[in-house]
Each structure stands twice: as structure tokens, then as C-alpha cells.
């Protein structure tokens, strides 16, 4: 059981510090875990960044890596989840030749079926956007193949936990109280 390879979503909250991303990916490299997808960006709290990484490995290895990531001074908190503990999505863009698309009927059905939409259309190409889980976006890719996909890109996964409140916010509030206590001493 301990060595069973499973997919994990690792969510990391960090300070905005140069070089931190490479420190984090270094930990994955050192433990021989490959990064399947990665996305990074600002959070609703000023100065706090979020990095979401999808990886696969034995739970013990992933846990060890997450602990070592959290140990980095500028990392605020790091968590890891199996898919059932989070709500997550990826964003995909498909570029299709517009003439091919027009020639090939049934595009509307396809868009409806996949809840996808057209974000740009010009005489040369059309860009379709779809948000969803990886297998859905892959299926749409398959269905578009007969028309011909000129380009296909997929974002990293973003995820929110199924907990009512992100534990990191509670943690930061607690740290704020501790800072004030220290300053008042």
C-alpha cells in the first residue's frame, strides 16, 4: 500500500520571493518525482502566491517532499491531496482552421456537448476554449481531430480544497496575532 503510485495535487502558498519556484521544483527532482503540471499565480491575499503541482508517486515520497518544501523559509504552507479531496480544473485552447471548421458541420453540437466556447474567430483560424478535467479536454481533442487541430495547449491544474476555508488563511491570521504579541512585548 505504502508504495502504491497515486496522483497527487500539491498546493503551495509562498511569499513572493525570487528563486522560490526553482527551490520547490528542486525538491521534486531530488525525490525523483516528475511534475505533470504546474501553475502559479497570485492569491486573494496580497503578497501570497499559490503554486499548484500535479505529480504521481508513493504517498510517503510525496509527503516527504511536501514537508521539505514547507521547510523552505519563504514557503508559508504546503498541502497535498488526492483528487477526491479537491475541486480542480484545467483550461485548454484548441486552434482550428476556420475554413475546415465551416466545411465540417456539427461544431455547435460539439461545443454544447463539451460546454466549450469560441473565444476568437477570424478568416484563418478559430480558437476554442474548454475548461474541465483532463480526460474531458482530451476527449474534445479527439473529437476535433477529424477537423484538424492546428494547435492544442493545456494549462496546469488549479484546485481548491473541499474544506470550507483554506487552512492557510487561518494560519496567516494566527501568525499575524503572534507578530502583534511579539511587537507588544
Amino acid at each position, binding site marked *: 500500500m505504502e508504495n502504491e503510485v497515486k496522483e497527487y495535487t500539491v498546493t503551495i502558498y*509562498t*511569499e513572493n520571493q*525570487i*528563486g522560490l519556484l*526553482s*527551490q520547490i521544483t*528542486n525538491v521534486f527532482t*531530488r525525490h525523483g518525482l516528475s511534475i505533470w503540471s504546474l501553475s502559479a499565480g497570485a492569491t486573494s491575499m496580497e503578497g501570497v502566491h499559490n503554486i499548484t503541482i500535479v505529480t504521481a508517486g508513493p504517498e510517503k515520497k510525496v509527503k*516527504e517532499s511536501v*514537508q*521539505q518544501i*514547507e*521547510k523552505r*523559509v*519563504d*514557503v*508559508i504552507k504546503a498541502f497535498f491531496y488526492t483528487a477526491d479531496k479537491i475541486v480542480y480544473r484545467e483550461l485548454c485552447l484548441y486552434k482550428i482552421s476556420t475554413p475546415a471548421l465551416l466545411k465540417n458541420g456539427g461544431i455547435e453540437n460539439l461545443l454544447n456537448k463539451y460546454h466549450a466556447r469560441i473565444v476568437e474567430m477570424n478568416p484563418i483560424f478559430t480558437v476554442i476554449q474548454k475548461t474541465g478535467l483532463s480526460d474531458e479536454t482530451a476527449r474534445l481533442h479527439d473529437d476535433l481531430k477529424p477537423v484538424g487541430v492546428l494547435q492544442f495547449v493545456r494549462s496546469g491544474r488549479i484546485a481548491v480544497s473541499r474544506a470550507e476555508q483554506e487552512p492557510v488563511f487561518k494560519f*496567516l491570521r494566527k*501568525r*499575524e496575532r*503572534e*507578530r502583534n504579541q*511579539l511587537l507588544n512585548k
Partner: protein
Amino acid sequence: MITGSEALWQSLIAEGVDTVFGYPGGQIMPVYDSLYYYKDRVRHILVRHEQGAIHAAQGYARAGKGTGVVIVTSGPGATNVITGVADAMTDSTPVVVITGQVSTAALGTDAFQEADVIGLTAPISKWNYQIRTADEVAWAVARAFYIARTGRPGPVVLDFTKDAQVGMTDFRFEPCSFIRSYIPAPKISDQAVNKAVALLDAAERPFVVFGQGILLSGAEKELRAFLEKGDIPAGSTMLGLSALPSGFPLYRGMIGMHGNVAPNRMTNECDVLVAVGMRFDDRVTGTVSTYARQAKVIHIDIDPSEIGKIIPVEAGIRGDAKKVLKILTEKMQERRHPEWNAGFDRCDAVERAKVIDPEVHPGSGMLRMGEVVDRVVSAFDGQAIVVTDVGQNQMMGARYSHFRESRSFISSGGLGTMGFGLPAAIGAKVACPGRPVCLFVGDGGIQMTLQEFGTIMQEGIGVKVILLNNNWLGNVRQWQQLFFGHRYSETRMLNPDYAMIAKAYGINCVSVDSREALEPALKAMTADDQPFLLDVHVMEEGNVMPMVPPGKGIHEIMITESEWYS
């Protein structure tokens, strides 16, 4: 307004720094220039190679409780300290390394002596930061010292760009005492403590293994009180040595590959194993799958990522060893375990007869390494700080030294860096000028940082260098003998005349190749506080025993080359 370089010195002084180890170069010259103003407050020790600077700073920190400081130039200056940064990281040593860097405009252009120091040191430092403006200097230095010395200590690298060194700033220093993403001293969990106390109170055969965490948290007294109340025997990791005086009745010796028989055997017989401030290194555990499987394990460490990393635990207590031990001692019951403790004596008797006596009192034949260590340490009445290099000299130094005071054993443990010894001994002596400092080093390791004789000469640092000279890379040779069918591949060394080398550096030296000559040489060595090289020609094919061979459990001990302990 002052320059960034002056701000650096003023910040260092504000952090209580009075000694730095360094080596100048092109991209750190403004810092060296402004040192002129602060020469009365800071002693700069000019080493002969940047690796020497960092190992000296490590020795300084480990002997004297402060943070070691290193200043080097960019590019090769910075890459030359990298081994020491990695060493300080594995051995949790507080050092702050300041590296020069090309100006911000030249960053990333492959400028002369530019190296990506932040990228290179990120995985091997506790924290690193590139100072790009003079205004950041005070903040970065304060943060660096706070991070280096608190929690689980470690090395911090500050990469100081040239324009930040010469830029002007309105200097104001504020010490750092809070970083929201970093919790150095966590709250101790009552639940974990209660669980540990219940285990301790029910234990019939408790055993403690402790490491450098005791020294780092200053928990020597608390450890003694804990052991005495519970009547619990204890073994030390190599880096934990000297946390308990060698004569302390419940101290049962060193654990690990070349540790003592009793604590290694009893690890696999105890019912409760308490690990404090140690991390179950593979040199300590032997094969993990057979390590202390019968025992319920209590692990106390300040670094939560260590708890459960190697050995599954029943109770994991995250916290400072000093505080945790104090709480446990208050809460647990007083116990006596006479029979359990007597079991250690039985193991000791076998080790004494089969290993220790033949090594320390051979009577005839060539001098042995253990014998030399014993005589040297006794010549200083157990008061010396013992520094070792890496290899057989290290194991013999660890096994046959005895200590009265804490922080008296300094060695490269986790990384095993040959060449560590000589500069680390320099640093230890600079930190503790009032104490004798003995270095045990082999003929391999001494040549890796031999140039630091120049530092000893220039600064008049009274280290006593005991060269255990056997014309082999002895530790590798021992493995070749035991596990590679006597195929001595590239381990034989043709040595220079070390007495001539010492003479060239103005260091007193006596070469010894007999038992009779050792005593007068020791007299000469201990007569004053001057630097001294004792070149001892020891038995060439001496082995370190006992030994838990690689791949064996900690209870499977070779007591001699041909006999297993049973």
C-alpha cells in the same frame, strides 16, 4: 548616508560578529576596502582557500555557540565555498556566507567571475538572498542571522552585488525576530507529550539515542536530569558526542557503524526508544528494516520533516530538545532499571577485551591509531576540543576521545567532507582560544586543505595537529580489505615529509614511529599553546572495529575482522 559595504560591516557588528573568515577578490573589494574602518571591532582571518574559510567558520560556530561568518568573492570564490555550505546544511551548522557578485546590470551576461550563486546554493542552504541595492543590506543581514541560528540551524548565503556594495543607504539596523512563513520554535503538543510520558512510564527497557540537537539547544543539563530520573541508558550519535561527559554513568557510548557494541545491540532489545535531536542517519541505523522494530519509538526533533522520515514513530514531539526534555522529566515517573542497565555492562566487557584493550594498550608492535588518540586526549586531561577529519582518523577520534565539557567534538558527520579537519580546527581555536584544540587527521585528508598551514602561520593559531599517518586512504582501504577482496585500488599514498612542510610554515613538528618516542613528543606538544604538528607513523593496515557492515542490521556486529559478536 553610508555605502552598502559599510552597512554590511555595521550590520555584522550589530549582530555581535567580531570574527570573520574570508578571502578577497575583484567583486568584493568595496567590502574589503571598508573593513579598514572596522578593523578595531572585527578580526578578519585570511585563509588560503575559500573552502578553508567556510570550514573554519563551521568549526568556529560549533565550538563557540555563535554564527560563523564567511566573506568571499564572486564566481570561483563562491563555488569554492559550496562544499562547506552543503556540509553545514547536513550538519545543521549556523553560518552566514557573503559572496561578492557582479553588478546587477551584468547579471546573466556571463560577466567575468559571474556564477549563479543563488541557483547553485538554493538546494544546499537554509536560505539565500541576492542583495541588489544598498537599502536591503541591513534587512538581509538581520534576516540571515535570524534564520541561520534559530530552529534547526543551517547555512545562509547572501549574494552581494557590486552596485549594492557601492550604493548609498540611510542605514538603520533592526534585528529580525519574526518571519511569518517560518516557525523556528513550535508549540509543544500536549497530546504528543502525554503519549510519550505514558510510554516512558510503562517502559521496562527504555533507551535514549541523542544527537547534536542536545548541543544545539543547550540541553545537556536537561538530558542528564531526564536520564537520571528514568534511570535510562543513553547512546550518542557521532555529532552528539560530548553532550554528556564520558564518565556519566548512564552514558553508554556511541551508536552507529563503528559505535560501541552495547548501545548498538541494545537498540534492538529496548522496548521504548527515545530519539532526541538526531535524524536516524543510515550510518546510525544500519539496515532500517531491522532497526529497533521491537521498540515503541518516541522522536523529539525541532524539524518536523525528520519525524517519521526514516523510522515510524509512536510519539513524535516537534520542539526544542531543552524544553521537551524538561517537560518529560517533570511529568514522568521516577524509575529504576538495574537489570536492564547491567546488560550494557556485559556487552562492554566483551568490547573491552576484544577491541578496546588491544587497540589502546597493544604493548608491542607498531603504534595504533586508537592508542595515539587515547594518549593525546589524556595528555590534555580530557579538556581538549577534539576535531577530526574524515575516515579512520575520525572514527578513532570519536571512539577513543573522552570529554569533560560539552561542545568538545567537531567533525563532518552527514556529508563526510575530507579536508574539513584542519580549517575546522583553526575555527575552533579562534572561537575558544583558552582551550586546547586537537585535530586528528589522516595523511589523505590533511593534503586536501594543507594550505591552511599558511593561515595558522600568519595568525599564530595554536592548534595541535595529530597526523595519523599510515600511507593509505585508510577507510577505503579497510572496505577494500573486507568487502572487495583485498583489491587496494588507488588507496596507497606516497607521502611527503610532513616535518619539512611544517618547518617551511614555521610550525613545530615531531615525527614519531615508536611507542617510546610518543611520550616525549606529547610533552613537547603540550608544553605551550603554539601550533604543533605531531606526525605519527601508525600501523599501516590498522582497521576500525567493531563494525556493522553495510547492508547489515545494527545488531550484526563484526567484533574483529574474522569474528561476529554473539
